[in-house]
């Protein structure tokens, strides 16, 4: 696919030259001063913000200070402004003696996080992120008070990544809350956080989090570099970032992991990955990602190892079912009728006797119908969704079979495919199986099993050629590393998680101490115990 991307790159070169930022606001008001006359400041603000009605101006007139407080209604916490600042200002009028600006700052304000800004460029930056600005008559400075306080959703249960056992909190749209959720889990000074703003228009807060000492520093620099290279007007969701920094565009497989669960992010940070938080979305992305990671559900680590191993193998199996089940059906019914036992072949033949379509068309119709239903089910309001699923079940399951358009086997195949597809814990991986399924179906139609094998081979070659931030995507299976198999196909008991994955983390490799394997107390201990028991 990289060949294709090369072709496209050449075409795109000319387009990339125009700098979006320059067009957007040709003379950025970076170094303009703040005016002495606060009225003029007000009119200037009004003009430049287009008289937006949510910009609140509150003028005040104290002894020697006249001025205005500006904030954006809804972004700033107005209670905070009135309770702490305006009240304090009015109560402490007496103390305002000298007319120095610093005095005002020192004496009056009971709010923390105060900052003086000197030029007009910073005005919007702070205003638009919910701060309150005080312009005082006669000064070319303004006071910037942190009053961020917009309404945010409460922390609730995760809606897309459910688990039976495990913490029930999930990220929300506020970046600060999200980082705090991680801080609460990893109480280490080595948990480092760096913030930057991305998006020339949206100025979205983006934070990189990692555990210093565990993370591979090269990856951190690489992540930062890629983030710095981003030049885009808007970042509305972490998906924007994901698509801008991933290694390969021409792939249907996710090379960056995303989650809305803080426990998942914490565990990934502890494995040496880098987490990227984006303001305004509950989805946090982590990198580098490897293939097998998308089959690891959080429950795997909370339940015992034998159970989680079995379930993980089941998930991988169902990924393959979701990928090739319809293709297998097509190739069995059109190429390899000898493969199935005689009675089964006759049963399938009997069912297909009255179906007017060739197997591929039949499969395609059913698969597409199902995909439509699923997509519609996602978009529909919850109340209607129920109705649609009933209609869908009736249309697909009952009516189509009775009308003789499709065979009952096909219904079985479609439903098993769909159910298998849902069992992949990561939506990003599941959806790539959904897409590839159609390609493999087409190949199976032309060449039967050979086509399926070709498709799967192409897929494996592609998977093996992928990298995520320098880490081979299929590691630790290919390249195989015997010491990293504790969390691949088989999840070892937690005490056997001796090391962190060395390809990802650097330095602090050790995970568990020696002799962590639990067991009954040793023979001598037990003797003592029983002796004591007898005595008492």
């Amino acid at each position, binding site marked *: 696919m990289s060949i294709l991307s090369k072709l496209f790159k050449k075409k795109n070169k000319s387009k990339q030259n125009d700098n979006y930022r320059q067009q957007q606001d040709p003379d950025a008001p970076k170094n303009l001063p703040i005016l002495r006359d606060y009225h003029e400041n007000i009119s200037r603000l009004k003009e430049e913000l287009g008289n937006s009605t949510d910009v609140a101006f509150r003028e005040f007139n104290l002894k020697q200070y006249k001025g205005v407080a500006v904030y954006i209604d809804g972004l700033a916490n107005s209670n905070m402004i009135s309770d702490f600042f305006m009240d304090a200002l009015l109560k402490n009028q007496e103390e305002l003696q000298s007319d120095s600006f610093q005095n005002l700052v020192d004496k009056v304000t009971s709010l923390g996080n105060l900052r003086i800004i000197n030029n007009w460029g910073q005005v919007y930056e702070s205003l638009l992120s919910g701060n309150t600005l005080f312009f005082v008559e006669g000064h070319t400075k303004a006071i910037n008070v942190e009053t961020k306080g917009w309404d945010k959703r409460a922390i609730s249960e995760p809606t897309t990544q459910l688990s039976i056992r495990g913490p029930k909190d999930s990220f929300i749209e506020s970046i600060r809350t999200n980082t705090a959720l991680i801080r609460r889990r990893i109480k280490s000074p080595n948990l480092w956080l760096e913030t930057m703003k991305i998006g020339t228009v949206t100025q979205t807060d983006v934070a990189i989090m990692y555990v210093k000492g565990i993370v591979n520093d090269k990856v951190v620099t690489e992540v930062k570099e890629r983030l710095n290279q981003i030049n885009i007007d808007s970042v509305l969701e972490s998906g924007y970032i994901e698509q801008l920094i991933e290694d390969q565009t021409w792939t249907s497989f996710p090379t960056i992991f995303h989650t809305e669960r803080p426990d998942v992010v914490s565990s990934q940070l502890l494995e040496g990955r880098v987490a990227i938080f984006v303001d305004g979305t509950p989805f946090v992305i982590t990198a580098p990602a490897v293939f097998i990671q998308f089959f690891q559900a959080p429950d795997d680590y909370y339940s015992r190892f034998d159970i989680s191993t079995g379930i993980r193998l089941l998930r991988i199996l169902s990924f393959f079912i979701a990928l090739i089940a319809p293709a297998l059906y097509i190739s069995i019914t059109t190429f390899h009728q000898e493969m199935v*036992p005689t009675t089964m072949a006759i049963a399938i033949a009997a069912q297909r006797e009255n179906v007017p379509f060739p197997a591929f068309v039949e499969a395609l119709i059913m698969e597409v119908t199902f995909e439509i239903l699923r997509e519609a089910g996602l978009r529909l309001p919850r109340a209607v969704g129920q109705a649609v699923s009933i209609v869908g079940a009736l249309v697909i399951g009952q009516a189509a079979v009775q009308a003789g358009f499709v065979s009952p086997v096909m219904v079985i195949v479609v439903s098993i495919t769909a159910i298998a597809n849902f069992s992949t814990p990561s939506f990003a991986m599941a959806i790539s199986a959904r897409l590839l399924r159609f390609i493999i179906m087409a190949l199976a139609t032309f*060449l039967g099993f*050979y086509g399926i094998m070709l498709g799967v081979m192409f897929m*494996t070659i592609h998977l093996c050629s992928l990298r995520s931030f320098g880490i081979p995507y299929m590691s630790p299976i290919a*390249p195989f590393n015997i010491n990293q198999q504790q969390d691949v196909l088989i999840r070892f008991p937690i005490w056997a998680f001796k090391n962190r994955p060395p390809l990802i983390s650097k330095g602090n490799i050790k995970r568990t101490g020696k002799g962590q394997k639990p067991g009954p107390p040793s023979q001598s201990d037990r003797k003592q115990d029983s002796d004591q028991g007898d005595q008492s």
Partner: protein
Amino acid sequence: MEKAKIKSTQLFVLIVLFEMGSALVVGIGTDAKQDAWITVLLGLAGGICLFLIYAKLFLYYPDVPLTSYIQKITGKFIGRILGFLYVIYFMYLSARVLRDFGELLTTTIYSSTPLLIINALMVLTIVYAVYKGFEVIARVGELYFALVYCIALLGFMLIMFSGLVHMENLRPILENGWMPILKITLGQTLNFPFGEMNVFTMLLPYLNEPKKVKRVCIGGMILSGLNITIATVINIASLGVPLFERSPFPLLSTVSKISLANFIERLDVFFMLYLMVGGFFKITLFFYAAVIGTSDLFGLKDYKKICFPMGLIILFASLSIASNYAEHIKEGIIIVPIFLHWPFQIIVPVGLLIIAFFRNRKKQLIN
């Protein structure tokens, strides 16, 4: 040369897949009847000796492939010609295996599908893999090694449980004495598959620990040789000598005899799975050697540019090297060993080793 490094385990896996690739499929040493497995073992022993020559040459020039050091040993002019001949040899072999592969599919399941299409799609996959580089090929090898082994074990167990194996079919051992066996070994099993290890003279420089080369490669050869022996024994034991001789693809015949509980039967698909994987690696490695050799001889910086054209050449060569399967097999049994395998696998390397030995001794003396 591409900038790539592979681990010794990856090389091991590639060797096993490569050696077993088509040898399991077409069945080797069938002329030796019930003693075919002995010829396999003898071929293995001879192959290891041959490989020691290649390894020695490699250790003299651990950083460059055959096409480069052949120039250093014999001089620019002759070296280039020989190197070019080697490239053609590798291309011919990859086309040959491709033809084998396509023939099998067209004789068994895809009887009315054109050979062109079947081969073209395979070539497309192979070109894609080669385009992605040697490291990727090695990684794919690791993935499929596990798969192949699982299938092989499963198949082995199924054959055992189906009660197909009748060990008395292997007797009498050495019915006709050693002579015919030695003949078949020298004419067939030594060259194919074990002598074909000479393709690795092009690939060994990628190994990240050149010191381990002998251990890894000979280990891989022994493992694959044993596997082929076991497969041959099972084929003879379950088919019986007459059928074993008459089957163009003995393993396919064996697999199709599996029948367990009247439900697990007709498992030809498993065989096809194996065939795809084995064929893929064999063709890919030959093809990759040819591509790398070409870019090395002509001093191309990026071998990727010639992947597609060379893929096309191999595709059309695979179609035109023989007009029917009988001719193809005849060429494979009579012409190829004498005129291609022996010179390229044995005579030239021995010559090279002798010259290289004296050259390097001279160097050491001067130093």
